């Protein structure tokens, strides 16, 4: 189901960029992403401006929140202490990105022993692309679109609609055992398609 987002998103754009005050903790994160100048005066500015992006990046690479949060924490702890500020936005982001790449590689080495995902993107593109979720979402859409109908439906129900296996089985009018088998086959096919897409 696609959502039409009603109401204004203008509040984000209206956020003052150069606000030197520490952001109120209750401010939505999205409002804190823009910075007026090209210089970060202090670590708070670095944090406010990049926390959402680093988290999104990590979430797209590991697919679960507890690990994405730990990795994001690791990146900021590693980056902020030795950082000499003020520094340019470009420099700081390049440093953040390089650190994130190393942190992610170490994560895979200690969890699955395989480099399941890497930070291969162009950092400039990652930090500038307007809707940050679009890349991952587009890739998922392309993989799903290439699947046979029933494979697509089971994966959509389970991964995007957050259905339990029982709910997915009911929606597809099959048994739970069959749904499990179908999901496994569908994912195997999805992995092949992903490899073909490159």
């Amino acid at each position: 189901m696609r959502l039409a987002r009603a109401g204004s998103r203008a509040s984000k754009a209206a956020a003052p960029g150069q606000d030197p005050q520490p952001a109120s903790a209750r401010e939505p994160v999205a409002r804190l992403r823009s910075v007026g100048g090209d210089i970060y005066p202090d670590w708070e500015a670095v944090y406010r401006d990049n926390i959402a992006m680093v988290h999104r990046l990590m979430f797209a690479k590991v697919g679960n929140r507890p690990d994405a949060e730990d990795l994001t924490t690791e990146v900021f702890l590693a980056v902020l202490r030795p950082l000499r500020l003020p520094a340019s936005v470009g420099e700081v982001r390049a440093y953040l990105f390089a650190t994130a790449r190393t942190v992610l590689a170490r994560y895979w080495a200690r969890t699955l022993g395989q480099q399941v995902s890497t930070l291969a993107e162009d950092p400039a593109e990652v930090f500038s692309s307007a809707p940050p979720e679009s890349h991952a979402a587009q890739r998922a859409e392309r993989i799903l679109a290439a699947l046979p109908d029933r494979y697509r439906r089971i994966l959509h129900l389970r991964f995007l609609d957050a259905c339990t296996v029982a709910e997915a089985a009911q929606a597809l009018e099959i048994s739970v055992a069959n749904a499990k088998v179908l999901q496994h086959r569908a994912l195997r096919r999805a992995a092949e398609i992903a490899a073909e897409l490159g």
Partner: protein
Amino acid sequence: MAVRGITRYIEDLLRSRRPRKFAASEQDADLARAAITLRAARPGSDAPAEEFVTALHKRLAADLDPVIRQPVSARRPILLAGTAAAGAAVVGAGIDHVLTARSPAAGPAPGAGVLKPDHGTWHTVLASVDLPDGAVRAFTAGAVTGFVQRATGRLHAVSGICTHQGCKLALAAHPARLVCPCHGATFALDGAVLRHRLPVPLTALPRLAVREASGSVQVYVPASGLPPTEAPATVRD
């Protein structure tokens, strides 16, 4: 063994849990990669939780500015406000008692039970025509985000923020419900808790007053910015 490892890994991803380690083969890595790509595309799940952003900010502040004390946390305004209100109620009762003892003609006591005017406002969130019967739409009105629904001709609106840690809920289909990307709690469109795997009890989503006026759907946003637990009873147009 490898099959079990990857199967459990995928199930953990689907349940929004931290996946457990296992020695993965190359084929496992391919499956994990595909599963991560699909899971990461679940609507609304990649934005950081406010709770996390605040906690990490605090940790970094302690790490980087050991001398500067952080101001008393602004992250628990609801709890603080609640405590203050409870304190005020006690004080109010005390004053009331003193006043009553000295002059029985004293006016209504301050504090507990007094109706306060709520300077909230009605926010137009979408045009009536964009909400046909049976439809659900996400909306943002000031500091409040939520979902508005028209079911059998009646309008309902609920807050779109999980009552656990404040994550933004995503709308899921089959059947339509609101799912928390953080820990998988699921709410019905009327705000009721459908299921969760949290060790603590979860409260239902606050409902918001909603009305239709001159072709638009409007939601009542209290001045505090927080949705009321129940629709305000004293609201007028």
